């Protein structure tokens, strides 16, 4: 049984059908790519998967559990985490705090414990510190633990966002243009990091990208969207050599 099953997903914005009849099946442990020209509806699909938007049609099942109609925070708890196209970090909080915030639902010491700074508070915080630092270390960000998130370099910020998403212990990780703004060297490192994440955290990954080198380099299967509908689906080889896909990106000759 697939980890993520999306059938006939669609959403209307007023008169505009932004996403229409999208079908997607992702197996556990897969590295899946979602590509398409600008405005094709890729981020909209992410927003639908994470409950930011509610679909007007279709079903979404994670581990055979429907998540349509659930709120973003509920969906996070069922196991989907994401990063954003325009980085959404907690700027005036430290790097460490950004990650610890994501441990919120794992270390649930009570309000009373918080008010009194009791033992369960102390041990909870200590454990969170340790887990957060370990996680940051994977990305080489532990040295910036006490730095404000807004002071990090662009590349580091992107990594922090991924780290924060991983802290929620997701089954499915959605990465929205993780390589945006990166040079070839950084992109290559990112590819290694993504593979590492999949191995180490046993997480399934769906990513949106424009960088074809990255997509063909690590994705096992790709879905191409255009104007909100499926244009092509298959392995990188099949998809990237599909003439319709090429036309969609480059325009008619």
């Amino acid at each position, binding site marked *: 049984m697939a980890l993520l099953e999306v059938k006939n997903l669609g959403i209307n*914005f007023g008169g505009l059908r932004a996403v229409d009849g999208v079908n997607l099946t992702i197996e556990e442990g897969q590295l899946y790519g979602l590509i398409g020209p600008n405005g094709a509806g890729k*981020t909209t699909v992410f*927003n639908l998967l994470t409950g*930011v*938007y509610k679909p007007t049609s279709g079903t979404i099942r994670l581990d055979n559990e429907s998540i349509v109609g659930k709120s973003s925070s509920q969906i996070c708890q069922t196991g989907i985490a994401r990063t*954003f196209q325009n980085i959404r970090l907690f700027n005036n909080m430290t790097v460490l705090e950004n990650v610890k915030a994501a441990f919120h639902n794992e270390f649930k010491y009570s309000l009373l414990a918080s008010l009194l700074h009791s033992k369960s508070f102390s041990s909870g915080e200590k454990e969170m510190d340790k887990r957060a630092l370990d996680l940051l270390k994977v990305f080489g960000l532990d040295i910036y633990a006490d730095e404000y998130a807004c002071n990090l370099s662009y590349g580091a910020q992107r990594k922090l966002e991924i780290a924060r998403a991983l802290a929620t212990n997701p089954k499915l990780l959605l990465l929205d243009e993780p390589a945006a703004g990166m040079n070839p060297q950084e992109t290559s490192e990112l590819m290694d990091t993504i593979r590492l994440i999949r191995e180490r955290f046993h997480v399934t990954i769906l990513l949106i990208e424009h960088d074809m080198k990255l997509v063909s380099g690590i994705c096992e299967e790709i879905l191409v969207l255009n104007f909100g509908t499926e244009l092509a689906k298959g392995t990188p080889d099949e998809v990237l050599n599909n003439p319709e896909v090429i036309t969609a990106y480059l325009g008619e000759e």
Partner: protein
Amino acid sequence: MVRFLEQFINGLSVGSVYALIALGYTMVYGIARMINFAHGDIIMVGAYVLYVCKSIIGLPSIVSVIVTIVFCSLLGITIEKIAYKPLRKAPSLAVLITAIGMSFLLQALSLLIFGANPITFPSVIKVSPIYIGSITISGITIITFVVTFICMIGLTYFVNNTKAGSAMRAASEDKPAAELMGINVNRTISMVFAIGSALAGVAGFLYISQYQSLMPTLGALPGIKAFVAAVLGGIGSIPGAMLGGIMLGVIESLSKAYISTQLADAIVFGILVIVLIVKPSGLLGKNSIEKV
């Protein structure tokens, strides 16, 4: 029945003033996405300016009213330039607080210049009342209706039929796109503040003609109520502001007459809460979805 009609007409009159003020709120919110907390106090400034022109300097009534409107308009533009423009890219909490600060500033200055004691200022409107059956409609009410009507027609024409008006509508929809189309957004925003504040000046003139007592806190409550009217009608919608204003005025008048003055206020604010819970876009507003 007579009483009901008189209260109803009174409500329309009060509502007209609210509508004029609400227009300022709604236009500014539409284009700058901010609630100009200082807007209500511009009415107060208008009333004081009228007083100074007429009673202290001794200008003729018409001139005084014109000076009032121009002064308020310029004041609105100035406030925008000094306090709101620098914060366009700051978190919205900052603009909100600054606007509150501006409101306080206007009240504080009036307090310092004119003192806290209410100043009696007889109406400059010297029009005789009309009698329809056993109902009396005062001259002030008549002028209020006429002036408000003219303003609304004028504004609607301006927004829909002039180039500047379409620039305003474009900038309200999509600022970056408007800029790309060659619209000077800064100038458009200034224009919105100018018009809104001018209308507030008119509202000040009408308000003080009705209540005839000047205080630094004159504008605060009507301002907030006019905002409720703008929300009721649909914030960002000009016809909405007009509709909301009139409706709120009537509801308030009738509540004051048939329930109690105290609870009338609670009812007005209760309307705000209900609208924001049930239909935040108001009666005539549009729903907007935030882009993530």
